[in-house]
């Protein structure tokens, strides 16, 4: 699900990549202030206390470091770790940390903190990396800079998850914390320290003066992040120069507008977020593969991309896997638009129009109707659902769109976010976050009959068999062929119709800061965008009071005064006739 975005993972290069291959151009001098308008309040920004995967987890990564980091191609490369070895059987990882890593409070980050973090996170479940931690048998710390991890079985994706995912906590602060979700101290070792957080108003980060990395240093002195939930307000602020970057993806209709705005630049790249038409394969007639194929053939995904996304998207591949995914060795299957074949498929399974009203009845001769559920507050998806309904009517299927509050849709499609709790829908507009594309094991969860993300109760023995081969992979190279085969199979069996992958489009003001790096599948708000190759340590900028809170105070005061005046005037006028 997009709203509870899980962690990002990436494409893995197990070969000993020890140096980052990213080079960010550097424009901004240290001591400057960067203002990033963010569209959600993400809470206290501890590893347990953020709300959404984006931008929340990205902000957590500014204040915390992990042992590995995902580079701009989303491959895990060492970060806190200087060098590492994997034993021959793949079960023993020896990690050597950099020396002189400091937490924001000045204490040292050592192997003890690493061990503490991994132990703590095993004990206090975290939705994103909980699974990945289960395979750890033991962690040893022979000296302050060496961590030895013993695994129960080889994990080819171990560097990606958990190593590049889990933020390292300061043991001396988190020791004794029993309720991590209520804990708000965000002291970490990351390039920026969370200096101030006023819920609903803003975040302020300051550069970590003793950042450990020999090459990569914080790029700016202070980052102020006003929280601006409304899209129009956020992009107006950007255009007016009140913020230097907006975390929200630029909606397609604004791209040209912002591109032409003076002083604003736009970066565009692929995003691994996906938009789908989810099918409840448990319910008749959606349990029939011919019916599902007919649905897929009736949809012109390129037309959807052109209409809803104005072309700023990649048309969905029927195999779900993004064409740019590095897991896909062979070119993925292409979407086919063939309403005539859809019609003949429906005829073939007994869906014919006996009454002559242009709409088909089911094989028993009863009128047939299917309903598409959609979040009422997602205008783009509502529009897409309307277009889909039109396409299905064109092949003779009576289709109704039902826009409902997001929580209600979730409770019908994915009650309690637990697929074993059943479901009650025909079709639903759905979306998965980028992380699902990045980790091949997530693909199994999506289509395997026992998969934890299989919200359509799709079940196909052949798919199960291929998906299970992902589990027994012992090396990175094993994944590619399986993923390609699975994509081909998914395209044929249609557990859902993949509609599009929206482009990640981000707007910023280059004159304020031009170090933004587009991280594949993710966007430009990333730690890599905000560190720079530098040797000298930037000075912290003078503390500037961010304006939103105050301004708002004045506005309210003014409003109250005006309202008061109006009441008094009104009262006087009303009262006058009563006087003799």
């Amino acid at each position, binding site marked *: 699900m997009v709203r509870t975005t899980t962690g990002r993972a990436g494409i893995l290069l197990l070969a000993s990549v020890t140096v980052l291959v990213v080079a960010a151009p550097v424009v901004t001098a240290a001591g400057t202030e960067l203002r990033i308008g963010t569209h959600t309040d993400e809470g206290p920004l501890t590893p347990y206390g953020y709300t959404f995967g984006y931008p929340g987890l990205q902000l957590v990564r500014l204040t915390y470091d992990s042992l590995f980091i995902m580079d701009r191609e989303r491959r895990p490369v060492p970060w806190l770790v200087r060098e590492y070895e994997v034993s021959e059987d793949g079960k023993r990882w020896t990690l050597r940390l950099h020396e002189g890593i400091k937490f924001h409070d000045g204490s040292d980050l050592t192997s003890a903190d690493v061990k503490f973090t991994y132990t703590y996170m095993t004990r206090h479940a975290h939705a994103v990396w909980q699974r990945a931690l289960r395979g750890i048998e033991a962690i040893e710390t022979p000296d302050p800079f060496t961590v030895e991890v013993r695994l129960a079985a080889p994990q080819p994706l171990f560097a990606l998850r958990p190593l590049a995912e889990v933020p390292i906590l300061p043991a001396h602060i988190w020791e004794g914390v029993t309720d991590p979700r209520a804990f708000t101290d965000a002291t970490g070792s990351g390039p920026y320290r969370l200096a101030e957080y006023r819920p609903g108003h803003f975040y302020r980060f300051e550069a970590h003066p003793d950042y450990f990395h020999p090459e990569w240093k914080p790029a700016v002195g202070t980052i102020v992040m006003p929280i601006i939930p409304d*899209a129009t307000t956020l992009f107006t602020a950007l*255009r007016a120069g009140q913020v230097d970057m907006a975390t929200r993806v630029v909606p397609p*209709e604004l791209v040209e507008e912002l591109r032409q705005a003076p002083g604003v630049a736009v970066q565009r790249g692929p995003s691994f977020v996906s938009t789908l038409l989810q099918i409840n394969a448990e319910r008749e007639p959606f349990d029939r593969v011919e019916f599902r194929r007919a649905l897929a053939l009736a949809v012109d995904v390129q037309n959807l991309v052109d209409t809803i996304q*104005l072309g700023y998207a990649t048309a969905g591949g029927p195999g779900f896997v993004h064409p740019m995914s590095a897991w896909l060795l062979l070119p993925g299957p292409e979407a086919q638009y063939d309403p005539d074949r859809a019609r003949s498929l429906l005829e073939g399974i007994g869906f014919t129009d006996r009454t002559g009203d242009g709409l088909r009845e089911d094989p028993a001769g009863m009128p047939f109707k299917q309903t598409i559920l959609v979040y009422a507050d997602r205008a783009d998806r509502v*529009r897409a659902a309307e277009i889909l309904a039109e396409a299905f009517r064109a092949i003779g299927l009576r289709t109704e769109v039902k*826009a*409902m*509050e997001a929580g209600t849709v979730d409770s019908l499609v994915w009650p309690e976010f637990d697929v074993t709790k059943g479901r009650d829908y025909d079709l639903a507009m759905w979306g998965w976050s980028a992380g699902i594309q990045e980790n091949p094991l997530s693909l199994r969860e999506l289509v395997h009959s026992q998969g934890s993300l299989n919200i359509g109760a799709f079940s196909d023995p052949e798919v199960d068999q291929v998906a299970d081969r992902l589990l027994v992979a012992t090396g990175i190279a094993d994944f590619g062929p399986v993923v390609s085969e699975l994509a081909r199979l998914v395209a044929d069996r249609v557990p859902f119709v993949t509609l599009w992958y929206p482009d990640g489009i981000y707007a910023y003001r280059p004159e304020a800061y031009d170090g933004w790096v587009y991280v594949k599948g993710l966007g430009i708000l990333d730690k890599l965008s905000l560190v720079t190759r530098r040797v000298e340590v930037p000075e912290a900028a003078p503390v500037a009071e961010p304006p939103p809170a105050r301004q708002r105070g004045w506005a309210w005061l003014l409003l109250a005064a005006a309202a008061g005046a109006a009441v008094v005037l009104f009262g006087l006028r009303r009262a006058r006739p009563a006087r003799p």
Partner: protein
Amino acid sequence: MAHEGVTRLGRALKTSPPGMLGISVLAVLLLMAVLAPATAPYGPRERVGRPFQPPGSRHLLGTNDVGQDILSEVIWGARVSLTIGIVAALAATSVGTVAGCAAGYFGGLVDGVLMRTVDLVLVVPFVPLMILLAAYLGPSLYNLVFVIAGLMWARPARVVRSQVLSLRTRLYVEAAKAAGGSAPHMIRRHIVPGVLPLVLAEFVVCASLAMLIEASLSFLGLGDPLQKSWGTTLYYARVRGAFLTGAWVWWVLPPGLLITLTVLGFALTGFTLEAHCGPRLARRGAGR
């Protein structure tokens, strides 16, 4: 008597220029809604061009975010908007009339309970409650009508009750009651006809309010995004960036102006009607 009361109202409208203006505006808009299939250049859901086109010869008000003709959308939207206004007002005034009549006629405990409920509804902050209810019940046309009616019946109930109170003490009513008229008979024969002109005036005021509420709720995204009302046109304009691009001129202004015009029409009509039959002006009627 009912017939006579309504005729008197008609006369009042004819002789008052604002009333005449109001009723004409409404008539034109109603006609536009009824004749939508003939006057609109395209169907409201037909995708007839590229999305986000500025006004041109083929599309006088341009196209919206999925390439539907905005002019057609606005003309067809009159149907949904006016229907919601009228249905919600009908529901609100019906409930209000029943409650008002019962409270006024029976008095005592019935009056107490009903009027305290009315006080409660009147005193609760209207806009937040409306948003809360709409969000809680979920987006659908019925819920919208329900929310609007549920919040608006209190005013007509109050007004009707005061009229009933004054009617109840009229000689002919007391005479009929003394002659043994049962409560249902009394209400049907003597009370309802007496309040009917007033109810009509209240209805018009409610309809204008209901339309405005529908537009506001839809604009905020709490309406049914699948219905083509003026409010939803505004909603899509807002969420698809019309306020940031220049598109608001042809996407926001037309439905906005139409809403203003309708409300103005209702208001002018309503004020004229109210001025002629409101209880506070009953002196004039009593003198005759």
